[in-house]
């Protein structure tokens, strides 16, 4: 039914997918696994016809669906062809009822109005839609009133409604599930898998993307492992089943996902149990798309703490929450003293700062010069590089000191630029991140939160940035909290690594532990459970 031949996709110079081959037959549940950044989302975007793909230059290779070559211009065409998708971030309309959501763009209408005014202006038959919705929900074993507003539902219920909407499509042939159980508890996940199996039994092909390996193993007929954009292996459960039990299969899979890594230079971790700089208890942050939900964590003075999780499980919300960029709840103690109000100015006064993960939209003034970016925060909040002046409002920055600092930092951080007056927007990602680091160093914080320091940066610059972070810790005695999805990097430079799962602390692991253990921890699985 679905066949991909040598499918490749690149964003600029970055190759996200490298000649992927994939085949799914009707009625088959096909698992797709891989770590962050292995190309799963790109593949799903191509299959579901998201506009991003076309806007970034399309893909190469063959995408055959029902024996026809496909190149979707928009999600509408994919839907028309019979490819439905359940999104990780919900595509439910909160202001519509459950029934309306399930029947969306597939509404039952009164025949008389259809004859009179045509398809578009046909009057919707609410009762019929409610009945359809109830029937589908009933089949899935969900007890839910179709009249409730979708916006008021719990996260788990939203996921089921989303699934129900796809089930309701008349000519659904291929169903794409993107992390369908990420937000569900074990019981709900089981129910969902039963429903998926049921629909597959009707001849619908399912592509099941999940981090939860046990689920993939238990419900999929066939599993494809992606690593760095390429297919590493394709395992058929039935064939494998003869010599491998489920648990062994999980181990095999996680081994395949991680692959063999080249060893790079690393900093040896130091155990610290001295002064607890920050103590967080039941700390919750309402960051949209990445929320923390009751985190308990201690951070020791002078350590480099790694924070990792799958995306959406709260790793970037920690720094942003402490800096007060998003509404937060819970207790924060700094050196034993409780902190009442969280806002950037307060935190800067207490020598805490953060480098945000999205440099371009939060970390830099792209239209301003390198020099201004490096000194802005220090001028504003620390009154560094400021001329003395008698008139209160009228204070000018000390251009000479700014220039000095900027040229020193440029040399120290090896920033590749025409001059320190060049606009930051014209620099490459790696150099931009160096400017951010110079900005952070000018603030001389005791505690620095760093979010995704190497996101979108080429390999050479990555190593350099990591070494600079280590230097900052060693020379200035900073406490660093680095949150990142790049496990390999964290393991090389951190003293401890906290793994978050669903916004809570799942475990604190040592950098020595194996990649497999990390992969399992990120998916919320205890090694003992296997």
């Amino acid at each position: 039914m679905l066949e991909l031949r040598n499918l490749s996709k690149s964003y600029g110079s970055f190759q996200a997918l490298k000649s992927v081959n994939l085949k799914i037959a009707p009625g088959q549940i096909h698992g797709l696994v891989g770590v962050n950044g292995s190309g799963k989302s790109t593949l799903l975007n191509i299959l579901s016809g998201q506009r991003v793909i076309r806007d970034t230059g399309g893909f190469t290779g063959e995408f055959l669906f029902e024996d026809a070559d496909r190149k979707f211009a928009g999600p509408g065409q994919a839907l028309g062809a019979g490819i439905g998708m359940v999104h990780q971030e919900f595509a439910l309309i909160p202001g519509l009822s459950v029934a309306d959501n399930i029947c969306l763009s597939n509404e039952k209408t009164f025949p008389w109005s259809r004859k009179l005014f045509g398809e578009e202006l046909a009057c919707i038959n609410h009762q019929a839609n409610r009945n359809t919705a109830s029937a589908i929900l009933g089949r899935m074993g969900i007890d839910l009133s179709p009249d409730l507003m979708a916006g008021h539902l719990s996260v788990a219920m939203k996921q089921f409604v989303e699934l129900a909407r796809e089930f309701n499509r008349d000519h659904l042939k291929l169903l794409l599930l993107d992390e369908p159980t990420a937000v569900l508890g074990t019981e709900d996940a089981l129910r969902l898998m039963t429903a998926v199996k049921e629909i597959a039994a009707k001849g619908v092909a399912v592509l099941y993307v999940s981090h939860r390996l046990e689920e993939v193993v238990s419900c999929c007929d066939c599993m494809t492992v992606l690593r760095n954009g390429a297919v590493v292996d394709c395992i058929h459960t039935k064939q494998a089943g003869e010599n491998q039990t489920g648990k062994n299969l999980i181990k095999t899979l996680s081994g395949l996902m991680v692959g063999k890594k080249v060893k790079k230079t690393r900093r040896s971790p130091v155990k610290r149990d001295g002064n607890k700089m920050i103590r967080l208890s039941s700390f919750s942050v309402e960051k949209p798309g990445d929320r923390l939900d009751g985190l308990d964590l201690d951070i020791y003075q002078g350590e480099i703490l790694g924070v990792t999780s799958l995306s959406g499980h709260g790793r970037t919300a920690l720094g942003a929450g402490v800096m007060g960029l998003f509404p937060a709840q819970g207790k924060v103690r700094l050196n034993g003293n409780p902190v009442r109000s969280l806002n950037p100015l307060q935190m800067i006064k207490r020598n805490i700062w953060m480098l945000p993960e999205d440099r371009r939209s939060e970390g830099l003034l792209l239209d301003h010069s390198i020099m201004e970016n490096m000194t802005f925060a220090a001028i504003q909040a620390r009154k560094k590089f400021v001329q003395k002046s008698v008139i209160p409002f009228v204070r000018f920055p000390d251009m000479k000191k700014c220039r000095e600092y900027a040229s020193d930092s440029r040399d120290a951080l090896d920033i590749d630029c025409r001059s320190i007056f060049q606009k930051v927007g014209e620099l490459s990602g790696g150099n931009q991140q160096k400017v951010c680091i110079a900005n952070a160093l000018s603030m001389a914080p005791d505690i620095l939160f760093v979010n995704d320091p190497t996101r979108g940066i080429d390999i050479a610059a990555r190593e350099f940035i990591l070494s600079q972070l280590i230097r900052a810790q060693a020379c200035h005695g900073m406490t660093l909290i680095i949150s990142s999805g790049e496990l390999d990097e964290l393991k090389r430079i951190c003293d401890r690594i906290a793994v978050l799962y669903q916004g809570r602390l799942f475990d604190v692991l040592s950098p020595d532990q194996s990649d497999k253990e990390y992969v399992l921890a990120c998916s919320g699985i205890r090694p003992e459970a296997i």
Partner: protein
Amino acid sequence: MTSGKRVPLVFVLLSGLAFYYSGMSPAFVLNEVITRFIRDGVMVLALIIPITAGMGINFSIVVGALCAQAGLILAVDFGLGSLSGLLLMTLVGMALSVVSGLIIGICLNRVKNREMITTIIIGFLATSIYQLIFMVGYGTLITPTNQEMMLSRGIGIRNMVDLEMFRNVMDTLWLFKIGRIEIPLFMILMVCAFAVMIKYITMTRLGKKFQVVGESHEKALALGINVPRVRIKAIVASTLIACLGHLFYILNIGMLNVYTAHMNTDIFSCAALMAGGATVVKARVRHGLLGIFLFHSLFIVSPQAGQNIFGNPALGEYFRSFVAYGTIAFALILNARNQEAKTGSIR
């Protein structure tokens, strides 16, 4: 949700107070309100669809009004009376409003999140173009057939065009009286028919699409809805309804004030809708119907009340324009505050 009830309540109180001080007779006020209901009702309803589609208040309903006026002038120019004239002006007005609605829709698809300010400017610009055509174009580039409506210098149309041949074609249909209150039942039914029509549209598949697009562009796109096209449809529908609404308005008055009749229709209609409890993101037909009654009763009684309280009718006049603009400003502020993100602090 609460603002949906609070705003109408404030209007009830204000107009009640103003009515008390104005000393006008209830029958007079009621007659006036009924007239306003016929004149402005459809115009108010024209705003509902774009709000549902998440485009905010469509101030460019003025363009629809201008299309109606253009159709009317053409009918007068050709000297068509009665039914054939009515037919011509309706057809011309509708054709023009579909075309201009398409253009406005394409413009608005370029300015997501700034639709409202753009529609205001489009309204102003359209007014200038309209004035240029009828004040300068007529008599120079366009040769009129009916010389009576021209200014004596031969260029441009007079400020007032008399619509005698259309007067009382529709207004007096099924007119009956209860005491001193005149009820032109046919016209009231016409306005109600528009209300039912818009209600019906919200219940159709297209209406669902408007609603989905209004809730979130991204989600609508992900669900395979052609968002730009749906938005254009919303604006075309709105312009069309506005055009018909303005025809009702002019025909009811029986005179066309060529250069000023369309002025402020957008502001007053919008204020009326907001007075009925609608917000910038949510509007229902009932908000429109309620709003017309509340807003216009205040409008009718406030100058007299100003005269009686302060001894100066101008004060009542100022009060009512303040109410018109202020209601819209208030709705905008209130809506933004509901969406506002809270700042970080430990609770």
